[in-house]
């Protein structure tokens, strides 16, 4: 009798402990996965960022600001900001127009245009830069004509502008296209049947609904314009104080063993990226909310 009771109790305890270990397993698996993710995150994302800041401030705060306030650094920052001002609005305008056309209308050649818009994503930026050199460089296709008219494109601002335009062309269009496609055309058709003109339909129906996706696309486009290295490097010519953008300046300073200055410049880029991310986060939250 007593034996039986003990066995029963024992088997109950077994079951409990088994359940406990299962529960513990369930608790440990997510914790383990989370741990791995955090370590990976720290190594790949946080450590480099911290390194950049640590190196930048290695010789103290005053030194940090003095390197950034040097004329070359200031020029590079100006140029980077100028490029984002000259490129982002154009590609935003293009992206809205292209995405509206491709997302709301069906016409022959539509697939081809979508593929072409993706081209800058699939072509290496260096190749893109080289294309502009081959077109507008001294030995290039339009080179002699440009020289005879005293127009400089390569190794000058227009070259940087063109290659930045090329590289960031898909960002806004690509961000908007899936949204517009998923919306269908019922609303636009409704608006037109209610008497709205084509422009009114775009302005009051289509545009307000793409607002947050548009902001998202603009932010991504801007981040890329400011950060682009490959294509700009090929066409810029690295003329100090004239055609160096921030990413190019970082490389030059680094190659000249001015590590602290290089990291100071890099920290500005990183800071711009962080600001961009915060704005993007707000945009995304609105987009889903």
């Amino acid at each position, binding site marked *: 009798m007593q034996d039986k009771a003990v066995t029963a109790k024992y088997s109950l305890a077994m079951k409990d402990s088994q359940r406990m270990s299962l529960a513990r397993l369930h608790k440990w698996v997510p914790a383990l996965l989370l741990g791995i993710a955090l370590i990976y995150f720290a190594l790949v994302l946080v450590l480099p960022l911290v390194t950049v800041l640590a190196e930048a401030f290695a010789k103290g705060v005053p030194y940090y600001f003095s390197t950034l306030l040097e004329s070359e650094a200031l020029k590079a920052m100006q140029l980077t900001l100028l490029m984002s001002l000259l490129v982002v609005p154009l590609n935003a305008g293009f992206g809205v127009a292209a995405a509206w056309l491709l997302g709301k209308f069906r016409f022959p050649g539509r697939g081809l245009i979508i593929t072409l818009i993706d081209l800058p994503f699939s072509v290496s930026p260096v190749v893109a830069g080289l294309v502009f050199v081959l077109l507008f460089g001294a030995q290039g296709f339009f080179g002699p004509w440009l020289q005879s008219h005293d127009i400089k494109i390569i190794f000058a601002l227009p070259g940087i502008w063109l290659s930045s335009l090329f590289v960031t062309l898909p960002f806004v269009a690509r961000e908007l296209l899936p949204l517009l496609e998923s919306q269908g055309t019922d609303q636009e*058709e409704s608006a037109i*049947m*209610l008497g709205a003109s084509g422009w009114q339909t775009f302005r009051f129906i289509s545009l307000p609904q793409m607002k947050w996706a548009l902001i998202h696309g603009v932010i991504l486009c801007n981040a890329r314009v400011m950060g682009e290295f490959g294509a700009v490097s090929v066409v810029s010519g690295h003329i100090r104080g004239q055609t160096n953008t921030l990413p190019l300046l970082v490389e030059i300073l680094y190659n000249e063993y001015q590590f602290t200055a290089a990291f100071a410049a890099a920290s500005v880029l990183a800071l711009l990226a962080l600001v961009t991310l915060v704005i993007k986060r707000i945009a995304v939250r609105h987009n889903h909310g």
Partner: protein
Amino acid sequence: MKISLRNITKAFAKTPVLRGVSCDIDQGEFVTLLGPSGCGKTTLLRILAGLENPDQGSVLFDGFDAGQWTIQERRVGFVFQHYALFPHLSVYDNVAFGLRMRSRQQRVAESLVKKRVTELLQLVQLGEFTDRFPQQLSGGQKQRVAVARALAIEPRVLLLDEPFGALDVHVRQELRGELRKLQQQLGITCLLVTHDQDEALAMSDRIMLLNQGLIEQIGSPDHIYDNPSSIFAMNYLGAVNRLPAHLLKPEKLGTEEQIFVRAHDLELFPAVSESQQAQIQTIVPRGGFMQLDLLALGTLFSGPLRAEIPRDRWESLGLDRGHLVSWKIKAYKDFQPRTQNEPSFA
């Protein structure tokens, strides 16, 4: 407004969708475009709205060729199956949209817009919902907003593309009644697309039955139900049994000829020998009548049968699932074979 369709044809990528549709719709009439999917009913509605152009033929509004007008000039009210409300605008702004988009000469003062929108929202019983946004409304409420928005521009005709298709049965029936009342109250010409025969029978002055891009039959609901002009028309409206003709005409034995019997034209009585018998398989109460699925086991015909008999008759029979019952045909139709796809007018 009177609408005339004159021999409308339309093909998409060489697939004919409409193959010559002509009819006249009177001022204030409620016409349902009924047919299976792919019959061209939605395309016809979109041609009326100006969203598609016919390949041939014309649409006349009160005798004027509407093909000469822009979509905006046509002034049609259109209600989509999935409402197509503007999600970033409030209920009020949705309904006011058409009034605010008018050209400068025709635009009305905001106070008049307010009066009109308030009236319309009361008409569709959404007076308290002006400040809500579409995502805060139920499906039925959304569709009411869509109707109010379409009516705001005082349309010449109200077109509805399966407007109740996305709603549950109760809301659907409620809105059907409301829409019909509203339409009669306003005296507006109304065309509604549906594939739901109940909806067509319940709402329409006339049903336009479409099949493969042609008008199969057009007429009042009871006319089409009682006098279907084709096998298709009889099949599409109401349950029909297809039976071999030799059941009633022994001389037809060995031929392929068929007769068509409505479910309520089958009479059931307690099983007796020397008669056609069937086994009761399922029993569905349908309010005033019972819908029965039977399996005929006779020598002349064996196979599934659908019968509908009054509830009191069913109760007096005292039968249940699995029991045998005798049946006979009270009334039937037969159709002379006609060349396929030839249009017929009633």
